[in-house]
């Protein structure tokens, strides 16, 4: 009898938990018909926000991959005293509250910040510009990519690198012909994850770049602004963002499945799991 009550109780808790996680997201999709959603998205403000989000996240991702890949490779291959501290530092932006990130970026790139005098002498103003949006996104999303790419490089069997060298390939040729192709699925999963985080960036952007339509107002900021005037437009944009996030999640899972064929399934699963739980923060 007691056992039955326990089982029912447990089932109720689990059902409540699942509902809590899913119902708000499903509500975003069911609140509007697709036709109505498209109509709402056709407004100039929504279109501008969408375009800005695409442009800034694209720029942020290019910067993240260009800088993050060598960084991830270095973390994977080198050993030095204090490496754990560097590893923790790389992951700091993941756990730091976005508002803190915004303040920190202002302290560095702002008019009165550390780089303020240098930027002023070059007649460059970063804070509250479109560039600031991309910087904020790269800052908060970068670590997701670096962690994923690093794990992808870690997962490569070192014998493969050694055998490539004995076959006459230099270290550089080995990187392009062996390490990069083998790490690619994990790196792409990292890009997808990082991109999802960049698309949703709100707090750091708000503080560091502001909320100027057409200049710094990305989709999440536009949703926030639209809530004051039109709930429908806000919901339509929310649905769009959610759809993009879902597509990226699907991509990660597909890459994960592809990675399993090259014998690196466990590693890529880790990549996909760790940051998803943390994106919610």
């Amino acid at each position, binding site marked *: 009898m007691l056992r039955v009550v326990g089982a029912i109780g447990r089932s109720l808790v689990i059902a409540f938990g699942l509902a809590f996680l899913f119902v708000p997201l499903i509500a975003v999709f069911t609140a509007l018909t697709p036709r109505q959603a498209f109509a709402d998205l056709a407004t100039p403000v929504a279109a501008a926000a969408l375009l800005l989000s695409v442009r800034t996240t694209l720029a942020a991702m290019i910067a993240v991959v260009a800088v993050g890949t060598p960084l991830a490779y270095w973390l994977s291959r080198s050993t030095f005293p204090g490496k754990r501290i560097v590893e923790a530092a790389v992951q700091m932006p993941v756990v730091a509250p976005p508002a803190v990130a915004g303040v920190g970026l202002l302290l560095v790139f702002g008019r009165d910040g550390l780089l303020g005098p240098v930027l002023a002498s070059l007649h460059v103003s970063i804070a509250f510009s479109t560039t600031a949006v991309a910087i904020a996104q790269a800052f908060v999303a970068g670590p997701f990519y670096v962690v994923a790419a690093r794990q992808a490089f870690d997962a490569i069997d070192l014998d*493969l690198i*050694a055998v490539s*060298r*004995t*076959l*006459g*390939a230099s270290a550089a040729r080995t990187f392009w012909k062996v390490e990069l*192709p083998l790490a690619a699925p994990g790196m792409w999963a990292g890009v997808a994850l990082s991109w999802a985080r960049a698309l949703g960036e709100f707090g750091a952007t708000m503080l560091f770049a502001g909320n100027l339509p057409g200049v710094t107002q990305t989709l999440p900021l536009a949703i926030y602004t639209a809530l004051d005037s039109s709930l429908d437009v806000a919901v339509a944009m929310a649905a769009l963002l959610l759809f993009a996030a879902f597509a990226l999640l699907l991509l990660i899972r597909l890459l994960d499945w592809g990675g399993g064929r090259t*014998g690196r399934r466990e590693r890529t699963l880790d990549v996909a799991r760790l940051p998803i739980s943390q994106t919610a923060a």
Partner: protein
Amino acid sequence: MLVCRFRKQLPEFSLDVGLDVGTETLALVGRSGGGKSTALRVIAGLAAAGEGTVSLGERTLLDVAAGTNVAPESRRIGFLFQQYALFPHLTVAENVAFGLFGLTRSERHARVHRGLEFVDLRGRDRARPDELSGGERQRVALARAIVTEPDALLLDEPLAALDVENRARIRAELRALLKRLAVPCIVVSHDFDDARVLGDRIAAMDRGTIAQIGTAADLAARPANDFVAALTGTNVADAASNGSASRRVAFDPWAATLAVAPSGAPYEWRCTVVDLRPLGSQLRVILRGTAEFKVDVASAQAGQSQYKVGDQLFVSVPADAIRMIEDLP
């Protein structure tokens, strides 16, 4: 001629290698963790050495004192890894072609074809490494190493990753392939039987030091020390007979006989049976006395459990089957 003289400090002991390998296969044999694989890595340039030299033909590949250390990609030494290290993202043909850059497409194609033919793997060129059997993987790895025409070939435990039932056949095939290759080869193995089949000569390595180099017959007949004796399956014991000074002697497991009572023979040891291992028509009796002994008796003689663990027996060996061990290190 591959000439290696080097020393490297390992956590538990020092690796001290002196090997001259002509156009032959040298089997480097010893227990796991004895430094054999590390020695191969130093020769290939994949690990550093503390001091010493490695030269191949006219070329000096490593001279620590002179600061010479040729990169692995320039040494022209092929390396076969224990797990074969096939590139999982490439097909068989692409794996074999990996080291063939800077050649015309047709030359590349011809060499890949010849390589696969050499290891008898025609028609498998489009397969992925995960679709191959252990033996096929080994042959792809071998083809990949030899199409670049290396001046020497190093093989790290080439048989360890294979199933037991295929091992003997692949071992014989590998021996034939190495013979046809006609470059200096070093094969690392922990198994004396594999070393005996693959190697023209055998170097027995114990904790970083080479205890003895010779043919398999040399090592079995005149083991330089207990380590080599244990490796070759030869018995080694102290013979303190006739009141003279104790001598180390060696004898084969099949040369000894077992008896319940002492016979008074000059070479006799009192022992306790610790294990019985059936080997086909033979029974190998493992005994412990002043040393561990292995004695083979015919199964018929063993009969219905003629011996059992715990029996007190005398191991006696005729004097003409006894070999003196001269120089103990």
